[in-house]
């Protein structure tokens, strides 16, 4: 037995080292039990920590999804008012968000699975610690050095192996969580610096341009209407934002996009032509 055997030897040697340090086995049992309780606390903190990071990622995903929808809507509106350049800009920015969102969702799933693993490990360790406490009290009550040694060795080896396993799970979860925190922090910074626009923040340049055009279009429409009333021209055609034609145009827009004719927006991610979902 190669890999399997060698790994079990590593666990056993660690347990044996701890047992070799024993003077009075009863003291060792109590000390070991204290360490188990500490480990349980550590696991619970680990679960809470992972859950907090997961929640943070969840909020960031929601924030980016709102921004994604907003850029889609802006692209549609821009097309409706005949500004294909603005629509392309919005879709390019959205493509950057697509990459970011896919990455965040993957991280979210990883954290979720880490959280489930730790929760199960915590339950398993709790059951083992309870069993150890019972065993420990029995051994102490019926203590005779020779007899106790074998029983202690068994219980001790079992619990220290479990603690080693759970300890490793915690270590791995901490590493993953730290990595996630760093990435989540980076997104917070991008939001703070305005490189990623916060949905609840000030209006962006695409929106400002659309609003300006909307206002101009409103004036023009009013003028046309007045002219029609005065018999100076035909009645104006009202732009309907929800018109199916506009919808269809917007839906086709991503496929119609060739390579961008202007430099892409200064964004934090590699830009892709079109707006792949």
């Amino acid at each position: 037995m190669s890999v399997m055997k060698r790994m079990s030897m590593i666990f056993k040697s660690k347990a044996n080292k701890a047992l070799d340090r024993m003077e009075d086995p009863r003291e060792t049992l109590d000390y070991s039990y204290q360490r188990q309780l500490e480990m349980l606390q550590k696991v619970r903190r680990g679960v809470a920590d992972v859950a907090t990071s997961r929640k943070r990622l969840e909020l960031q995903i929601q924030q980016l999804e709102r921004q994604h929808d907003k850029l889609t809507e802006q692209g549609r509106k821009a097309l409706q008012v005949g500004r294909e350049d603005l629509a392309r800009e919005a879709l390019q920015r959205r493509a950057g968000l697509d990459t970011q969102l896919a990455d965040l969702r993957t991280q979210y799933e990883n954290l979720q699975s880490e959280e489930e693993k730790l929760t199960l490990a915590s339950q398993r360790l709790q059951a083992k610690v309870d069993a150890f406490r019972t065993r420990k009290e029995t051994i102490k009550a019926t203590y005779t050095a020779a007899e106790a040694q074998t029983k202690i060795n068994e219980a001790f080896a079992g619990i220290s192996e479990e603690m080693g396993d759970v300890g490793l799970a915690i270590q791995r979860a901490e590493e993953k969580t730290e990595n996630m925190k760093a990435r989540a922090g980076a997104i917070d910074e991008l939001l703070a610096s305005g490189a990623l626009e916060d949905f609840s923040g000030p209006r962006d340049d695409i929106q400002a341009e659309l609003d300006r055009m909307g206002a101009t279009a409103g004036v023009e429409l009013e003028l046309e209407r007045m002219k029609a009333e005065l018999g100076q021209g035909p009645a104006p055609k009202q732009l309907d934002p929800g018109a199916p034609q506009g919808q269809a145009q917007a839906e086709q827009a991503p496929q119609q996009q060739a390579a961008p004719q202007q430099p892409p927006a200064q964004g934090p991610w590699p830009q892709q032509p079109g707006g792949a979902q």
Partner: protein
Amino acid sequence: MIVRIMGEGQLDVSSADLASLQELDGAVEAAIEAGDEPAFRSALHALLDNVRAVGKPLPADSLEPSELILPPADSDMDEVRKMLGDEGLIPD
């Protein structure tokens, strides 16, 4: 024989099923020696799947030490190499 899959728990595997495990374990070791990550991953997953299929999970409150211990399903080759090293990855 009791086998632990790290991060998952312990299973009781009958000695009759041990031969197939040894073969798969050999494939894991060969992949590590060859430094072949894809082969390592597929061999490790095959080994773990086999243990899960033939093993009977031990109750959570059992205090039995395992005779065989397997790395977690999501480990990579370097991580397992370190585990098998002198220091090991298992915290004290």
